[in-house]
């Protein structure tokens, strides 16, 4: 070896050493590429260099970086198939380095390059391999023809080995870094999603978290209750752009039938991924709208990922990531990350919704437990699914007895109860039907309505026994009252019709009788109407009582005086007062009661006799007795006389009967003045009615 040669060799070693040092310091792939393509190319005394690597799928070679080549030489070569008959592909395929001394040799081997510039003379392409696996190649072009003797070849191969190791290491590091970032991002996103049940809020935060690291734009759309698309959130680093995006959304609402984008993803439940957004797609979306074209151009959309939010086979929404002004185009790894993020978001949304449903279910169960109406849920096979406490109380069948069993078994009367109930669909006008039924040995009136919701029927039951009895009483009252009115009306009408007959000569006695009949029956009518009105007011609790201290002796004396005015001669009427104590009562009402009792006493003493009104105090009460020596009341009728429209034999009353309401009204009035009205009687010997009122303390 000559001195020049040895000095040259030492020089090469030094340069390689320098490259090795630089490569050792380089951390990121970009730093490694920079080191190789500056120091490495210079160390190899080459004019230009380029580095290509196999894509992940191994089908193509991607040119990572180059230095020194004319733009014209590399245009269209950013990526090319591994199968292509080009030096770099050949070297990566075979793993064998390629040393071409001259352009002639290159053109001979690769005729397709014949028309390329001649400034590159010698060409070296060496494989980049780690642990025997070729992952790329480095090309070095020289500006002269070079015969590559072994030392020179070895130097290029050494350089390639150093570059390969550094590049592989940095790529691994970058991948790890990316992975770590993604894991961190996913962890943060998961934490956000789990932080609250308000998924609207958390999803917006996730969108915010995605920019700018994962996307320039991130949008989340949800499927609304009626299948409509609802934009939940849009995120961009610049809030002004977010506002603008919302305006844009308002102006160009999504077409639910659109063949691409969010509508398509929501429809299919499949991700949509455009590493490079095809211009045709944009053109199609833009149509003839120049304004929209300007906007889209301004957005500078490069690459998009749209993934569905799917939980339990239902598409809840979609997550859209857009790479525009800063973010590099998306890769398969980005898609995988987006899919994972969407999966977690969907689970969070689904959980939140399930939780809310469960909460609502719990609220509903509480409401059903406390509602006064019976609620029974029966499935299509007739089995009891729900049986609330009110249903148990109405039917007399406990919840635990009913649940899961055939309703017609646990409640034998069920079919009778529900067979006439019209079942309506949900939201229909469920008209209740009132049915008499024997439940648990008791006769009840139950109001039932039913809604058929497809999977079964929900029945609402209401025990209206009391209301029904009240209603019956009311209608009976009206019917009876009208009967009571018809008889005196018939008398008045008939008397007038008869008096006006001109075909018959009436005797003076008959004529007088008819006139008297008109008068007395009209009076009776007025009295009945008054009493019906009063009874109705008492039933409706609409009678006002003015309880004041009153002079009982004076009231009693007044009653006696007025009764004496039209007393039959056969009756004697007496008043006896034995120490009247002061009481609180409504004086007019008490007078009304006493007048009625005295009238009755006279009326039911057809043979005459003594009627006595006695006032006395006893055991803190004031007792007012009305006693007669008349017909008396049979034992079995003594309570019935206080019922509405109940009357003792009226033919014994000498003519005009009453309304049948007198004693009913008397007892009601007395009881509402905190007193009691009772009767003692012996048939044939007379009766004694006693009003007992509390003494004023």
């Amino acid at each position, binding site marked *: 070896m000559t001195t020049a040669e040895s000095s040259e060799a030492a020089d090469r070693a030094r340069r390689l050493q320098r490259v090795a040092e630089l490569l050792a310091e380089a951390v990121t792939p970009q730093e490694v590429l920079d080191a190789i393509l500056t120091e490495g190319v210079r160390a190899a005394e080459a004019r230009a260099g380029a580095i290509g690597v196999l894509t992940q799928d191994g089908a193509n070679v991607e040119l990572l970086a180059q230095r020194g080549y004319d733009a014209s030489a590399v245009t269209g070569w950013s990526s090319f198939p591994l199968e292509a008959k080009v030096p770099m592909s050949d070297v990566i395929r075979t793993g064998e380095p390629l040393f071409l001394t001259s352009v002639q040799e290159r053109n001979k081997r690769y005729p397709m390059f014949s028309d390329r510039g001649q400034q590159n003379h010698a060409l070296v392409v060496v494989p980049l391999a780690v642990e025997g696996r070729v992952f790329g190649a480095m090309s070095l072009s020289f500006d002269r023809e070079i015969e590559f003797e072994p030392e020179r070849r070895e130097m290029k191969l050494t350089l390639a080995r150093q570059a390969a190791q550094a590049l592989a290491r940095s790529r691994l590091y970058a991948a790890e870094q990316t992975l770590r970032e993604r894991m961190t991002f996913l962890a943060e996103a998961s934490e956000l999603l789990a932080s609250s049940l308000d998924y609207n809020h958390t999803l917006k935060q996730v969108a915010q978290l995605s920019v700018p690291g994962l996307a320039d734009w991130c949008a989340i759309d949800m499927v609304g209750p009626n299948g409509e698309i609802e934009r939940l959130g849009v995120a961009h680093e610049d809030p002004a752009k977010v506002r603008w995006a919302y305006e844009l959304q308002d102006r160009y609402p999504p077409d639910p039938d659109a063949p691409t984008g969010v509508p398509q993803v929501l429809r299919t439940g499949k991700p949509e991924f455009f590493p490079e957004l095809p211009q045709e797609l944009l053109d199609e979306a833009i149509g003839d709208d120049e304004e929209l074209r300007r906007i889209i151009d301004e957005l500078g959309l490069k690459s998009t990922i749209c993934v569905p939010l799917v939980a339990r086979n239902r598409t809840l929404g979609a997550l859209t990531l857009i790479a525009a002004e800063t973010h590099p185009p998306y890769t398969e790894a980005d898609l995988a990350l987006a899919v994972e993020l969407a999966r977690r978001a969907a689970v969070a949304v689904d959980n939140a919704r399930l939780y809310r449903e469960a909460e609502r279910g719990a609220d509903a169960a509480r409401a059903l437990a406390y509602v006064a109406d019976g609620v029974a849920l029966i499935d299509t096979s007739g089995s009891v699914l729900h049986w609330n406490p009110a249903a148990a109380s109405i039917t007399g069948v406990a919840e635990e007895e009913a649940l899961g069993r055939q309703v017609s078994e646990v409640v034998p009367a069920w079919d009778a109860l529900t067979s006439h109930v019209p079942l309506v669909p949900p939201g229909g006008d469920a008209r209740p039907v009132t049915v008499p039924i024997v439940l648990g040995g008791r006769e009840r009136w139950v109001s039932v309505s039913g809604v058929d919701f497809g999977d079964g029927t929900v029945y609402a039951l209401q025990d209206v026994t009391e209301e029904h009895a009240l209603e019956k009483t009311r209608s009976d009252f009206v019917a009876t009252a009208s009967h009571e009115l018809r008889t005196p009306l018939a*008398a008045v*009408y008939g008397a007038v019709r008869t008096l006006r007959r001109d075909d018959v000569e009436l005797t003076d006695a*008959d004529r007088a009788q008819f006139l008297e009949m008109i008068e007395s029956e009209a009076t009776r009518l007025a009295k009945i109407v008054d009493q019906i009105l009063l009874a109705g007011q008492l039933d409706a609790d609409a009678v006002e009582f003015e309880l004041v201290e009153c002079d009982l002796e004076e009231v009693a004396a007044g009653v006696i005086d007025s009764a004496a005015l039209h007393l039959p001669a056969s009756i004697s009427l007496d008043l006896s007062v034995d120490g009247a104590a002061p009481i609180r009562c409504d004086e007019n009402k008490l007078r009304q009661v006493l007048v009625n009792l005295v009238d009755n006493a006279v009326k039911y003493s057809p043979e005459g006799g003594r009627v006595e009104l006695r006032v006395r105090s006893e055991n803190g009460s004031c007792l007012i007795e009305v006693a007669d020596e008349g017909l008396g009341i049979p034992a079995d009728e003594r309570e019935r006389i206080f019922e509405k429209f109940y009357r*003792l034999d009226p033919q014994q009353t000498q003519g005009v009967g009453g309304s049948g309401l007198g004693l009913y009204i008397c007892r009601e009035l007395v009881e509402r003045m905190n007193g009691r009205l009772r009767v003692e009687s012996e048939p044939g010997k007379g009766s004694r009615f006693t009003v007992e009122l509390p003494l004023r303390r």
Partner: protein
Amino acid sequence: MLVVDDERSIRLLCRVNLVASGIDVLEASDGREGLELARQERPDLVLLDVMMPELDGWTVARELAADERTRDIPIVFLTARADPADRRLGQQLGGVGYVVKPFDPVTIGDFVEGVLVRIERGERDELKRGISSEPDR
């Protein structure tokens, strides 16, 4: 003809107007007296009130129908009860007429005579059928 009503005024109305139509009138002021008179006197027709104490009109009609001596006596109910259900009951108990109070006593004579004429003609069943839908007045 027998009038059974516990209301004196109704009896008076019937009597005066029936007599004016040339009809002899017997009166009973309750169901029991009505039954007795019907059995003793066998009237051509009974004008029968329903709401009477002790023995009501329905019971009287049943008893009349159950007794061989009285079963053929036509019954015209004269009552304050206007419910369709009451009309049907009156029909079931064999009534040939159903007059609801208030009624026109002036025409009552013509009415009962018309009933008697139709019974004479053998239209008793038609009369019975008619009372559940016959207009009152």
